[in-house]
């Protein structure tokens, strides 16, 4: 069949429309019954507790390498003592939320897409509808609420472990005073920094869960279709996280004043 630009554009507009409707319904379901608390808790365990090791490791190594790289530049200006400040600002405002979200996207957006995709191609989603249960309420809303809630706390953990990673480098390689490192890291943070760092994971959690579920529920064409949906979910969620990060950062800078 010949490529048609109109059909291609229509297909993309339709996909955006379907994604928006799914996201809205999944979010609106949070404010009405039934809420499927058991499923929410199960998802919190899978997404939150299950992601702890990779989030902690990512945070630690990011903080450590950040300290190493920044120390190199700061030393040229005789400002090595500011290493703690730099690691703290970078981790809390930017790297903590973004890298944690990208890790969770890689682990959970793919998991959601493959799980729901398998259910879709084996008619389990249709079976659920046939049994009188709304799949959006039963499957998507618990994943949405669990991801938004748990990513918030995973980011806090990642920030803390990142600062600890930086402190290990500061102590062992840079020979900085540990007390000075932690004091400067702590004192440089303002409420606006923390606010920015904690708004982002909530938004990114929304993106990860809705994109993962959307691609899963749109899967077609057997196991190959499930594989394609899984890959697309991770790519789309990761790109969206980075794009939204830029927009939100700029928006919060305007709203909260120069940071």
């Amino acid at each position, binding site marked *: 069949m010949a490529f048609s630009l109109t059909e291609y554009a229509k297909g993309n507009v339709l996909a955006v429309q379907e994604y928006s409707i799914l996201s809205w319904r999944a979010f609106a379901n949070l404010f009405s019954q039934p809420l499927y608390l058991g499923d929410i808790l199960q998802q919190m365990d899978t997404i939150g507790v299950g992601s702890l090791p990779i989030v902690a490791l990512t945070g630690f190594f990011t903080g450590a390498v950040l300290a190493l790289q920044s120390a190199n530049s700061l030393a040229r200006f005789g400002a090595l003592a500011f290493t703690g400040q730099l690691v703290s600002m970078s981790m809390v405002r930017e790297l903590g939320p973004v890298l944690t979200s990208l890790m969770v996207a890689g682990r959970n957006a793919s998991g959601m897409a493959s799980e729901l995709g398998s259910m879709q191609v084996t008619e*389990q989603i249709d*079976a659920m509808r*046939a*049994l009188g*249960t*709304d799949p959006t309420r039963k499957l998507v809303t618990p994943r949405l609420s669990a991801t938004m809630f748990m990513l918030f706390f995973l980011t806090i953990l990642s920030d803390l472990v990142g600062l600890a990673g930086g402190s290990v480098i500061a102590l062992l390689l840079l020979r900085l005073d540990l007390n000075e490192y932690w004091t400067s890291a702590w004192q440089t943070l303002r409420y606006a920094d923390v606010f920015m760092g904690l708004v982002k994971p909530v938004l990114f959690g929304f993106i990860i869960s809705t994109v993962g579920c959307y691609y899963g529920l749109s899967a077609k064409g057997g196991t190959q279709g499930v594989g394609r949906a899984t890959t697309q979910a991770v790519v789309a969620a990761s790109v969206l996280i980075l794009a939204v990060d830029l927009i939100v950062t700029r928006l919060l800078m305007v709203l909260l004043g120069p940071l």
Partner: protein
Amino acid sequence: MSADGRNGSEKAVVFEGVSLRFDEQVVLEDLSFELEHGATKVLLGVAGSGKTTILKLTLGLLRPDSGRIFVLGQEVTAMRERELFELRRRIGMVFQESALFDSQSVEANVAFRLREEKVPEEEIQRRVHEALRFVEMEKTVNLFPAELSGGMRRRVAIARAIISQPEVLLYDSPTAGLDPVTSTTIVELLVKQRDYYKTSALLVTHRLQDAFTMATHSFNQQQNKMVPVPPDTNWDPRTSFLVLKDGHRMFEGSASEIANSGDEYIREYLAP
């Protein structure tokens, strides 16, 4: 309610001039038929003739391009998805590949609908065992779908569909891909459901022998098995046939009418 004042309440299922296309392909074209309460309509036709689509349209899982569909007196084609969930609780469907929830046990699959309706756990257990006993699968209660054979999965799917005693049952090729012995067991369950609970049903099948077994047998409760209807009586009058070709209705009538049809396509279709 339709313009002529009829709302289909006297019928279990009513299709009125239903048409559906997927892109350029005609799936159903101006299809009309009715299913009486307590009756079984067997949908026959070659692959791709729109049989499964009819079941999905009946449940509201698909929407037609034109025409109207009534189920249990409610116009499915005029209902929103949220309203359909209520209606679907009065309908049971057995999917072709069973569509059991593979991460849940047999017990959780069969009990799914009751748990959604917040039925007390004690009653759930009683009804799950009753439904599994009906399909003779009581021993599999703690197994997972992956541990079951194809025939066993179909029987669990039937148990899941009948647990809430639905008013309409939709069977999508329940014997497809099964050996003859297992197929007969499944057909016996359908006959038992038809004669014991008097449930209205749409049955999609490729296997003509299953369709004729439905029409020529009844369930004997004393013997707990299906038996042929006596030779001097008519075939089961509640079982009728609908033959589809390229989305069009080719034939609609009783078992004896289809067996004696002079239509060339029907004769070719019925030929072994």
